[in-house]
């Protein structure tokens, strides 16, 4: 069946990134200066794709024989992924020289990972979900171990690879069972037949395995054991994109496959599962983060607890809580990338200076960095009027509307615990005397990434309706 030119036009965001990857490989091949050119080329690609996605958000199409969708929720997710990759690319320019692996291929892999995430968020077919997931994960495995001379990076890469492959095994097994029962991989057909199939034990087992596989990827509690080591061992910028855009991509798949199901007059049979992982992730992440001295490890545990807050939205699964998750993911992306960019500026060579003691008295030497770090910490703790507060607020409201008030109460309780370790960072920066002088010689681009993230955190905090109305207008599609 031939496809019309119109369909290729609607596929433009994917084509931009895809052609960009091929061009980047050619640039890397023909010129020695690729490491100066490629960051700017990537920024151009990500910027144009983000802009185009948000511009065509109301043009919703399902393309190529029901394989992929553009516009709507997928457009919002594409915007988040590309914006995150853009900020990470900016802060990578200076950081990679310090880290000792300033390769042009780094940027190609980031582009490929973003393509994989976009495929995941836009998929209308389980086959596409799997291919997108693998494209993203393989790029992340390599990016985590980019500097093979570092033991920490090797450990992170291998751990991530083994446990990631294990999780993918769950996903594939689940897909195989689902296909075996229904003889289709099209998500729309699966949704139509969901009520009829939900009594079939093979189908439900397939879905459970599928969800467990993605619970690994969102770093929820019983499947979190890779998170602290991988986030600590990888390059700080890589951790930045892994913890934000990677998590958003996994959530986008859960939202596409599951929430569409619940709207077709069938009860949310998985809400006990999500309620359990939400409760455990929130409490575990917040409590263990209390004792962490390494900033990256602390943010890793905080990432687990944030996955818990977002899973509350999946438990409630009404349109309000789903919008809340998407808003939360956008807010979390900016807060976390800002925090990781600041750590990447402060970090010294050989993974030094990532402990909380190293930023003691940061206010004296770098008042701007200290101010932005406090902004991100307040936002992550969920203190109004910053972006993190509204993320949590919308998710909790959604939970209460669906009758999960107890879950919202646990969420608030866990947020209160988490305030301690976020504010501890602020206390170290402002109320202690500096013990060592921090000389940072990072390029101005890292600072720009920090400033843009900070601006977005403030913007989403002061005018949350701006984004929320956009999400609400597309969420039911």
């Amino acid at each position, binding site marked *: *069946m*031939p*496809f019309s030119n119109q369909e290729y036009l609607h596929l433009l965001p994917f084509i931009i990134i*895809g052609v960009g*990857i091929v061009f980047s*490989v050619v640039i890397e091949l023909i010129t020695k200066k690729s490491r100066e050119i490629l960051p700017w080329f990537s920024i151009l690609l990500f910027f144009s794709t983000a802009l185009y996605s948000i511009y065509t958000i109301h043009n919703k199409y399902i*393309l*190529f*024989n029901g*394989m*992929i969708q553009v516009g709507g929720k997928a457009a919002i997710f594409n915007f988040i992924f590309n914006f995150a990759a853009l900020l990470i690319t900016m802060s990578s320019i200076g950081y990679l020289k310090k880290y*000792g*692996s300033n*390769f042009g*291929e780094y940027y*190609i*892999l980031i582009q*490929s*990972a973003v*393509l*994989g995430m976009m*495929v995941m968020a836009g998929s209308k*077919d389980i*086959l*596409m979900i799997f*291919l*997108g997931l*693998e*494209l993203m994960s*393989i*790029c992340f*495995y*390599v990016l985590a*171990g*980019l500097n*093979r*001379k570092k033991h920490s990076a090797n450990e992170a*890469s291998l751990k991530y690879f083994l446990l990631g492959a294990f999780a993918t095994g769950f996903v594939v097994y689940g897909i195989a*069972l689902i296909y*075996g*029962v*229904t*003889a289709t991989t099209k998500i729309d057909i699966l949704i139509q037949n969901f009520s009829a199939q939900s009594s*079939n*034990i*093979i*189908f439900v*087992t397939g879905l459970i395995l599928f969800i467990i596989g993605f619970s690994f990827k969102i770093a929820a509690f019983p499947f979190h054991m890779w998170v602290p080591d991988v986030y600590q061992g990888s390059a700080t910028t890589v951790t930045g994109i892994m913890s934000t855009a990677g998590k958003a991509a996994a959530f986008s798949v859960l939202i596409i496959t599951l929430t569409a199901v619940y709207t077709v007059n069938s009860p949310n049979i998985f809400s006990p599962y999500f309620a359990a992982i939400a409760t455990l992730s929130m409490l575990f992440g917040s409590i263990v983060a209390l004792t962490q001295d390494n900033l990256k490890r602390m943010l890793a545990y905080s990432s687990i607890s944030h996955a818990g807050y977002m899973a509350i939205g999946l438990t409630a699964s009404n349109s309000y809580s789903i919008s809340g998750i998407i808003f939360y993911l956008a807010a979390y992306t900016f807060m976390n990338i800002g925090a990781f960019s600041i750590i990447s500026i402060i970090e010294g060579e050989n993974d030094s200076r990532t402990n909380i003691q190293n930023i003691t008295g940061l206010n004296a030497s770098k008042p701007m960095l200290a101010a932005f770090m406090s902004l991100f910490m307040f936002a992550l703790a969920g203190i109004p009027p910053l972006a993190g507060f509204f993320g949590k607020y919308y998710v909790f409201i959604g939970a209460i509307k669906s009758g999960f008030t107890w879950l919202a109460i646990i969420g608030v309780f866990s947020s209160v615990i988490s305030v301690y370790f976020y504010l501890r960072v602020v206390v170290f920066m402002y109320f202690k005397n500096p013990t060592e002088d921090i000389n940072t010689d990072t390029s101005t681009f890292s600072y720009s990434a920090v400033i843009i993230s900070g601006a977005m955190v403030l913007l989403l905090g002061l005018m949350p309706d701006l984004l929320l109305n956009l999400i609400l207008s597309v969420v039911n599609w």
Partner: protein
Amino acid sequence: MNIELILFIILATIAAVTSILVITRSNAVISAVFLVLNFFALAGLYLLLNAQFISVVQIIVYAGAIMVLFLFVIMLLRTDGEPRIFSDKRYIKYFALLISIFVFIQVSYLLLIGSPSKSVTGNQSASINSGTIETIGKELYTNYIIPFEVAGFLLLAATIGAIILAKKKFE
């Protein structure tokens, strides 16, 4: 008893027995050779399912190229001094056995209790053509063009990643 069932029983027995032999032999080379045998049995099973193309690819790519690579790596790396983790820690052995039995019971329960779909066992004459290289090529370039392209990017990223991790020179 028709010929298809007899062939299935023979091939399935070979596949099951060789896969057990793969994990129980202590010599890695012998394990690899049994794995080749296992792949051949699987290729025969694919042929019974009217998947001619996949069956040929299974032999050429897996039994041919990949296993030769495996054997070379095993011969180049010395594997004599490998520590035997299971004999050191007995409780791991029992734990692994317990999990295997649990999963086996689960899967058999699923297959016996659940009903496989009726649409999977379609009519025979249509499914004989579905495994040919023409049909697969046509499907790949029409209905499945987007997954096909994404798989291409996946392989590109994997190639770049492997080269960086193995060969990239540090200044």
